[in-house]
């Protein structure tokens, strides 16, 4: 039932996010003829167009922002709404409260990342094009990994900052700082933006706009481990907090 509570708290944000991402994917596929003419250097291939506009471009950036917003909430926010007392009086540990919210949030981030993979390959035949399922699924996996880190940042910020806007703003600033640091040559393999789009990575062929090599499992493991540490830290902070 704690998962039900976490779901209900984030339901509106998630549904709106899903509709936005799915809607944009539908529009970009259905109006691909018009949209492809607007690129510098001539119209790209359909696969190249999808990569530039969805997996590298607007939709990916939007996904990051929406996942960041999904991470906002939790007990500190509940204190502001006045429901923290009711929640904390339930016979459950604070760890379980934190875990339920993390599980639901991560599931939502994963579902959002799957939407382009569901929409684009299915709709492409309607515009006499095709997009490989394997590519779409691999990008979804990479988005889920990137989304996990972004969600963990927002999740941790929400545990520390109770203001309605302070947690997402802090998480956004942390994301910007992380992005700047991850651009440094020694750390660029851990840059989730590049990882999610494949830009400049050994597993992505820019000329074909396709993932051709093995996915960066080591970097994925490190990013998931860092995210996991952030969730544990959020749990420990919650455990020690006064409400």
């Amino acid at each position, binding site marked *: *039932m704690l998962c*039900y*509570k976490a779901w*209900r*708290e984030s*339901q509106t944000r998630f549904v709106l996010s899903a509709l936005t991402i799915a809607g944009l994917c539908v529009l970009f596929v259905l109006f691909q003829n018009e949209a492809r003419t607007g690129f510098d250097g001539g119209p790209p291939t359909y696969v190249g167009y999808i990569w530039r506009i969805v997996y590298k471009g607007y939709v990916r950036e939007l996904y990051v922002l929406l996942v960041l917003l999904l991470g906002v909430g939790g007990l500190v926010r509940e204190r502001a*709404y*006045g*429901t*923290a*007392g*009711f929640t*904390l*009086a*339930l*016979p*459950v*540990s*604070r760890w379980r409260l934190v875990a339920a919210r993390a599980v639901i949030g991560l599931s939502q981030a994963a579902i959002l990342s799957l939407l382009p993979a569901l929409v684009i390959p299915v709709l492409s035949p309607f515009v006499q094009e095709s997009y490989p399922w394997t590519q779409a699924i691999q990008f979804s996996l990479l988005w889920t990994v990137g989304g996990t880190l972004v969600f963990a940042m927002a999740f941790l910020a929400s545990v520390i900052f109770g203001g309605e806007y302070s947690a997402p703003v802090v998480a956004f600033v942390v994301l910007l700082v992380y992005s700047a640091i991850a651009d440094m040559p020694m750390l660029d393999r851990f840059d989730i933006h590049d990882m999610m789009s494949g830009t400049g990575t050994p597993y992505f062929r820019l000329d074909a706009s396709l993932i051709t090599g093995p996915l960066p499992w080591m970097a994925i493991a490190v990013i998931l481990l860092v995210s996991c540490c952030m969730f544990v830290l959020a749990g420990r902070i919650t*455990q*020690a907090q*006064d*409400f």
Partner: protein
Amino acid sequence: MGSDCVIETHELGKNYGRFEAVHALNLRVSRQQITGFLGRNGAGKSTTIKMLLGMTHPTAGTGRVLGRSITDSVENREMRREVAYVGEDKQLYAYMTVEQLIRFTRSFYPDWQNDVAQHLRKQYQLPQNRKVRALSKGMRTKLALLLALARKPALLILDEPTEGLDPVSIEELLHALVAAASEGMTVFFSSHQISEVERIADRVCIIDHGRLVADLSLDQMRQDYRRITLGFATQPPANEFKIHGVQQVKIVGRQVIVLARENSDVVVECAHSLGAVSVDVAPIGLRDVFLETVKEET
């Protein structure tokens, strides 16, 4: 801990930085009684309740509720299975309907009594498909009370339960608390509304500036507490009345006003021996005891 105590704290304290919200609190709440926790705004009532429920961590001392430590997170969680809490602001999940919130809460308590919940829902006229956000504060309080009572807790803790309610809702709430106590539940509720505490409580603990300044049975108070007004022909002797059981001695002109929690007979005898020209002994209410106790502390 004595088996007749459901709440017992020992030197319990809570500091917020340099501010001492609760100081060396030794609180005892007896089983199957209604205990009022009286204090001014900011006296430390809510902080104490939050410490008892594990929402706030004490900075000093220990405490046990239903025999379980309040500072051990596992024991505290087990204790919360048997304790129901209605918070000060009575906010519940606004996005759920009445029915959804009942179902949600029920899932945490194996002893949940559906018949009680249904009976109370009808009695309180709570529309099951209405969202909590659309309920008035009075209705929210009733819903919070339903969620608390339907699990048949051993202990019901309420923080300022009547705050912000209209007189009809207050009346219904007080009736519900008395009914709960008559069924064997222990009720511990904080308030700064003296008349409400006096009406339903068996016992009163008064807290001021984070310190427990009085712990008395209301029957005992009605029986023993007296205000003795003594008139003298000349300047009255104040020090002569510092007798065991005398809480306060006040001199107003040629009158001495003695507030005694016991031994009022001894005070009267003493007054006669000192040549008092008039002696008036009157029982006092909780309001007087509270105001005098709190004033004394200030």
